[in-house]
């Protein structure tokens, strides 16, 4: 799979979301917060692109959405990984690691 730059970026957000949801169902806000916390505030998810991305992933069948109650007892939409999402997570993790290794290798030479 030869990824273009745009796809790479988009794919990365997909990967991060998938990974985050692997821990269990959560709503969009929690996903954004979790990513930010886990990356030591390095990765600040642009909230404007988070939701279209979630919707796209839902279309692809990687994640499923369900309305539920939030911690403060409000109606919120919870996302969870589907089986195909889990598979996608494995694949994208593998690709990411390969690319990451390759880039590291390139950076280490010279």
């Amino acid at each position, binding site marked *: 799979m030869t990824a273009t730059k745009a796809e790479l970026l988009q794919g990365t957000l997909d990967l991060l979301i998938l990974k985050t949801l692997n821990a269990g169902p959560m*709503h*969009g*806000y929690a996903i*954004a917060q979790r990513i930010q916390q886990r990356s030591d505030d390095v990765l600040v998810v*642009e*909230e*404007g*692109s988070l*939701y*279209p991305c979630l*919707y*796209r992933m839902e*279309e*692809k069948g990687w994640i499923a959405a369900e309305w539920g109650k*939030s911690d*403060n007892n*409000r*109606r*919120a*939409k919870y996302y969870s990984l589907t089986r195909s999402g889990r598979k996608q997570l494995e694949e994208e993790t593998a690709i990411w690691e390969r690319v990451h290794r390759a880039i590291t290798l390139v950076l280490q030479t010279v």
Partner: protein
Amino acid sequence: MKIRITFWRWFRSLGQRRAVKREIDEELRFHIEQRMAENVAAGLSPEEAAREARKRFGNLQSVREECRDVRDASFGEATLKDLHFALRMLRKNLGFTAVAVLTLALGIGANTAIFSIVDAVLLRSLPFKEPERLVTVWERNPEHGYEANGVAAANFDDWKVQNRSFEQMALFRTPSKLDLTLGDETERVTGFAVGANLFPLLGVNPMLGRGFTSDEETPGREDVVVLSHRLWQRRFGGDPAVVGKTVSLDGRSYTVVGVMPGGFCFPGGTGVLYGDYDPAADLWMPLAVSSEERQNRGDHHWKVIAKLRPGVPLAQARSEMDAIQGQIHKSYSWYFMGTHCTVLPLREQSVGGVRTALCLLLGAVAFVLLIACANIASLLLVRAAARQKEFAVRAALGAGRGTILRQLLVESVLLAVLGGALGALLAGWSVPLLAAHVGDSIVASTPGWSEISVDGRVLAFTLVVALGTGILFGLAPAWQAAQTDMNDALKAEGRGAGTGLRGHRLRSGLVVAEVALAVMLLIGAGLLLRSFSRLQRVNPGFSPAHLLTFQLGLPEARYPRTQDRDAIVERLCERLKALPGVEFAGATTVLPLSHLAINNRTYTVVGRPPPELGQFFSADFCFITSDYLRAMQIPLRAGRSFGAGDTGESPDVCLINEALARRQFPNEDPIGKTLHLVSSHREMEIVGVMRDVKHRELDSAVMPAPMRAVFDCAIYMPYAQDIPQYRDETSMVLRTSGDPLALAGAVRAAVRELDKEQPVAKLQTMETVIRESVAQPRFRTVLLGSFGVLAVVLAAIGLYGVLAHTVAQRSREIGIRMALGARTQDVLVLVLRQGMTLVLIGIAVGLAGAFALARLLSGLLFGVTPTDPVTFTVVPLLLAAVALAACYLPARRAARVDPMTALRCE
């Protein structure tokens, strides 16, 4: 699986746009408010918190829209987008679209047309209350070879008293033709004498006035009449004050007491007269049964309709009636009567004859549609192959497999709906033509025929068929597209985007299926055609060319005595014979093949011991004038014909037909023997033997064998020696030297001169009478034949399409072959072999299928076996020839490939 999910969502989402929008808004609001809450918790003022949250979120409106777009792309608006796109694709390929839509229009149109008939005739319920509980009841005597005979009045009374199965039982009589006189206009109408409880039994009330009372069932009080809606409209202009008016029927006056609602014409079109022709009633009269008739157990001219009690199963009613009739028979075994009963559900009876033919036609049009589907699937496959790059590109740009599948299905369903719309138009235009031009006998004797129309129900059927068709033929290319590896497709660029082996196999399979279906249909059509031509070659026993016929009422009121009737008929014959162009003029009470009622009576041979108890001989009775045989050109086999000396005063004489001679006098000379007529105690001497004439049907095989023996025999008596209770409709026959119809005006004038109140009914040529008598076989033969031709044409187009495409694809290969020395005919053979292999497989499959299915036709065949070797040989050959032509065109094109061009093409 995936297609299903996508489709389901797409379908469900059609009305869900607003809900989606609300959900998105709520989700985004939750996010922002969550952020605000956190900001407040971090110490910001509510206003600042809100501002920060919004700022951080970015452009809310555009996010909202983007989310909605994601949804729309696969749901809701996708329909519109897909439709728009599909329309563009269809417009871009006008040729393809036209061929596909036209093919579908033919297929769907044919289905719609046949369904409209099936719907009106088989599916609609009868216009009576609780028709499923209605049955007709008959006397049955397997020993005498009849399954359903009318009941004798005394037997009916016993049934009525003894049975526990029926809520009600009503009597009615076979139709009478009556002269209805209004002012100075007289016309022949059809009347039925019915029991007073018939209308209540059927659950239909008069729309004006009343029905009959049991009082009016007494002889002498039956001078009341109920009009049909049609007659009321036609002759009384729908006058609401018609009740109480007086009309003249056969010279007697009757008081109109009621008008039935529109569409009610019992027993017309219900088939209750079982095998007899049952015309629509114009009016009804009370059935007055005299006290002598009430005692009669030998005269079986009464028909019975009954209504089962709720919850009584048919089998129970049958066994009860068998027991009752068995008992009656035991007590009166010296009468000619049934030993059992036949109880027939009305529905079964009314459609029995047509059902097979209609099911056959429905099956045939389904085959045509399947062939059309295969054709279009094949075309779409070719197109899908050409569009593989397009799909690959779209897939690379993010379109999912489901999106592309959906797009393809939307395209095919759109095609099908366009085809369906055109098909519905075709049907709407052709069905009324078809329904009206099948011949009067079908129109009048098939229940529901007059209601045939392309209405909402039929259109709903069309829509379902169109959608189903679209999905059916859309599946093949969609499946193929789903199988294609997009990367391969992209890489395959420049090599004519290989359709792949799979697509090719699929299309070959479709061609085989098309040819097989066409073979089956054509064999069916061939069998019907062969049996119809056999039927038409049946010798009716007379020479029908140049014969003009018409019917005369001669009502008893104006011609009370045999002599009066005889006198006017004789004068009329003389007058008609004197007309220029008329060679002979005769009268008969039985016009062959005209479906008028025929009197079948029992007789014995004088001087022989009476037949065993319970054994009876019967024959059709016919009264003819002396010139009848000459006019009809019925040859005399022995003895003499009737002459001027055979009058009402001279000794009774008769002619018998060969069948009767064979049956009664196999080894002796019948001339000079005397026959005794059981029910009228008349004796007449046999003076001659004449050739057998087909009175009832050309195809006597429609009757069960024992029945045929009963109806084969005929006795002819001089018209002047008429027996009043045997009286039937009088028909005139004229042997003409030129065009019979050219005499119509002169004939009418001649009748009017003798009796200006006497209407001339059914003035037509004998050839028309015969044509009407085979209207049903003709109808199914013509339709099945057209469907067969349509199937072959479609299959040939399909074959041509596949081969033409293969040739175009293989032009490079062919070029190389030619460059390497292949000759023109090698290439020709190569392509022909490919096509004809498919055709031969298809023919083999089709023959096997036809062999299995043909037995279903056996009931509709005459003089041909379902495995008729001629049909099974000619059809495959014919199909192979058509197929060869369809293969030859692309093959020739292949042979003309210029190697240099083909090779350079890449």
